[in-house]
């Protein structure tokens, strides 16, 4: 492997990891506030449609990104209303939203572009840097910012308190529901960033291919920590990049190479026994005034 090839592998891997990493970063905020967001996959479907739609309609990929973030936040808001206000099981809500989002993107694609499973190509793209989508490089400052917000700001402290011990947080006068809404909406907004790095040139049904779920696995593997989640996402992303770049040169059937990241995820999660702990109130609705 030549030097230029190596650099290309590095940046290409960053580009391929970015959609997973952004979603995983968002998931950290949702889960640290106490809400499991399995709707990431569906939200990513909607944001990756929205970015193409809005870019073409408004002739600017930046406006496209803006509306993708809005769309992601909106679907996440539904999740927050259903799970925080109405205290519905978070996984049930997430599954329902995934079904909803799958239909919504196809419905809109049919209505807007006359084709259910794909849009036309979007000519308005982000600038390239070193041969890849430049937005991928935002991952590094955003990850550091996420770490800072979570561990070095009052908001981050409050968010973590709500996820660990909502009763105590309530007693201290914190707005438990408001903080959980914020956490969930951040996870939706970050899926807008995922859309910006996934494939903003076109929307094709099925293009997210389980990345929302992989992001959840990465977040768990990263121990509910922003930096950990990004590193785990890079592991999945680079494994995939390796497959794409060297598939033809490896003497084993391509399907086994394709399985590798998933097997890796299972092995990694199985090996984490006793080492990682979810936020204490993660997945549990908080009911005000109950003893």
């Amino acid at each position, binding site marked *: 492997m030549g030097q230029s090839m190596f650099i290309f592998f590095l940046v290409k891997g960053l580009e391929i990891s970015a959609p997973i990493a952004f979603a995983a970063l968002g998931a950290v905020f949702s889960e640290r506030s106490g809400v499991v967001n399995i709707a990431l996959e569906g939200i990513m479907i909607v944001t990756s449609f929205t970015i193409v739609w809005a870019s073409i309609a408004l002739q600017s990929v930046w406006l496209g990104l803006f509306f993708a973030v809005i769309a992601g936040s909106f679907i996440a808001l539904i999740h927050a209303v259903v799970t925080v206000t*109405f205290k519905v099981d978070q996984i049930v809500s997430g599954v329902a939203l*995934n079904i909803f*989002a799958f*239909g919504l993107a*196809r419905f809109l694609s049919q209505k807007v572009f006359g084709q259910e499973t794909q849009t036309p190509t979007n000519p308005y793209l982000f600038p390239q840097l070193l041969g890849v989508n430049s937005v991928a490089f935002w991952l590094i400052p955003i990850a550091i910012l996420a770490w800072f917000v979570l561990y070095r700001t009052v908001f981050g402290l409050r968010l973590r308190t709500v996820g660990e011990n909502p009763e105590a947080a309530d007693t201290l006068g914190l707005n438990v529901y408001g903080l959980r809404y914020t956490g969930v909406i951040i996870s939706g907004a970050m899926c807008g960033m995922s859309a910006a790095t996934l494939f903003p040139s076109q929307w094709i049904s099925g293009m997210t291919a*389980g990345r929302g779920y992989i992001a959840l696995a990465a977040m768990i593997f990263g121990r509910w920590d922003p930096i950990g989640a990004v590193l785990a996402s890079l592991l999945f992303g680079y494994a995939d990049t390796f497959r794409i770049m060297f598939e033809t040169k490896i003497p084993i059937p391509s399907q086994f190479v394709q*399985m590798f990241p998933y097997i890796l995820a*299972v092995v990694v999660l199985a090996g984490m026994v006793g080492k990682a702990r979810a936020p204490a109130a993660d997945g549990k609705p908080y009911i005000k005034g109950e003893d």
Partner: protein
Amino acid sequence: MKLDRIKIDKYRLLEIVSPVLGFLASLVVLVIIVVAVGESPVKAFVAIYKFSLSKSAKLATILSMSIPLFFAGIAVAFAFQAGVFNIGVEGQYFFGGLIGALAGIYFHFPPFIHIPVVIIFSMLGGALWALIPAILKVTKNVHEVISTIMFNSIALALLNYLVNDPLSGLGKGKSLEPQTAKIQSTALFGKINGFFRLLGWNVPDYVYLDYSLIVAIIMGIIVWFVLFRMRYGFEIRAVGTSLDVARYAGMKVKRLQIAAFLISGALGGLIGLQEIFAIRGYYTYNIASGLGFDGIAIALIGRNSPLGVVFASILFAFLKQAGYGLQFYTSVPNSVIYVITGLMILFIVVINEITAGYIKALRKKEAL
């Protein structure tokens, strides 16, 4: 005594209210969407009617479509009963279908043995694909939602390899679709349309009401019996209701959860029966996908009870058919059905929480 009974019925009524209201609320959304795309709601409902309830052939199609959906729903529901969220039914039926098909291809038996054998092998395959996530859940605390999703992806890649390479049954250029060898005629599922015609229901030949319907009915009864008439089922439900209480009562919680997970996988293995053994007669990874996820919706709408799943799977088949009707006769795309289904689940669970709160308040008031 008599008064008590009336009160209990009132609670029962409140519990049934949420699926009904949820269904109605999603219909309202459907009407709004139809109007928003500039179609008349009347035209839309006529389209749905024409494609679903207008003719006995359409009704039979709905029943036929509901068979795999029923297996999907009952598989997810069984796991739910034990507090296990099996999102992996998708991978389990793809894998179970292959194992069943292999038993149909390579074993030689007379039909009355061969057919039960392929059913059992389909179940074993489904259970096998649930085994590792089940063990990881109880021993390593790996959340089954993540592990089964990974196993879905692994299954797809593995089956792609197996059907394309070692198990490929393609003659030279006979068909473009990757597939296994043909299943022996002794393992193929015949149709029972004639039986329904005897009953006076005019089911046309092209509709598949096959042996898988009989399997579905038998499995539904067995699952109901196990869950609600056997101690084992009681324990499984106890684990699903409260892990701590079940543990305190001395139940073997881990073993029960593994068992429920495997049974769920086994039931899921039956989803492909109709398509593989009645319609295609060979296995391919191009069999209908997404049924595992439909099963989650069906289990939720059917509130995890076998009878509820029967209704929910027929409702779901009706909705799918309604989607085709809309697509065919109006400018409303078929995908609107997924939008409606997702919303329906949300409506049902939200209304359910509200009525549950209301029931709790009522009970409290009565206790005072």
